[in-house]
């Protein structure tokens, strides 16, 4: 994800701002890291450059 995505995303649970913590990036994009809600503290992973902002109870729910 590009950093400017931060302007439009929020915590899916309470709609508060997210704090970005980058663990891996290239010239253009953030490849890995976490997004943490500044209100409820829920943490969302960024994997292979794609932020996973599913609510926690949907995150592991995966069809075959």
């Amino acid at each position, binding site marked *: 994800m590009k950093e400017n995505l931060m*302007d439009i*995303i929020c*915590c899916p649970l309470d709609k508060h701002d997210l704090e970005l913590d980058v663990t891996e990036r290239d010239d253009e994009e953030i490849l890995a890291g976490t997004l943490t809600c500044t209100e409820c503290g829920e943490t969302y992973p960024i994997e292979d450059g*794609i932020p996973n902002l*599913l609510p926690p109870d949907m995150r592991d729910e995966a069809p*075959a």
Partner: protein
Amino acid sequence: MTDGGGTDGAPSLADQRDVEQVYQPAEDSKLLADAVVERVEAGDCALDVGTGSGYVAARLRDAGADAVGADLNPHACRQAADSGIPTVRADLTTAFRDGAFDVVTFNPPYLPTEPEREWDDWMERALSGGEDGRAAIEPFLDDVARVLASDGAAYLLVSSLTDPDAVRALAAANGLEAEEIASESHPFETLLVMRFALDDG
């Protein structure tokens, strides 16, 4: 929702595996995109919900919008991201800020499906709209007004199979004014594109 095709070039084997789990653009996607691109202005902030392959998002981008895709399906997210669409794995519009978008599009899963046939795999999920065909449409209409800018609009592909009047009623209950802006007849259904604007917008 007949077979789509419509991708350029032959996908690699790895891509092919993803393709089988991601809804590929069909006539419904095209009807939605054709109707919306006429109404998009350069620089509009746009969100394509259930972006799948990223087709509608790419059409919005080509029309000058800053388009973002969202999908529940990780394979769809990968495919859309690989085609250059900024993509978020998210449930409908729930992970986006209030008033963030001038344009929101959604070609929902809408085929009415018996409960015992549901949620077997990602493709089923991309097609099935629950028993009344509105299982994804209803929560979408419940939240979309929140993410629209005051003069923004949402565009929804609606099939005659999912009772367009019921969809209009759901929209009205959420303070959205519905307008039909495109339609196309097919052997077993009529496809409509509905535009929703905030009542006071």
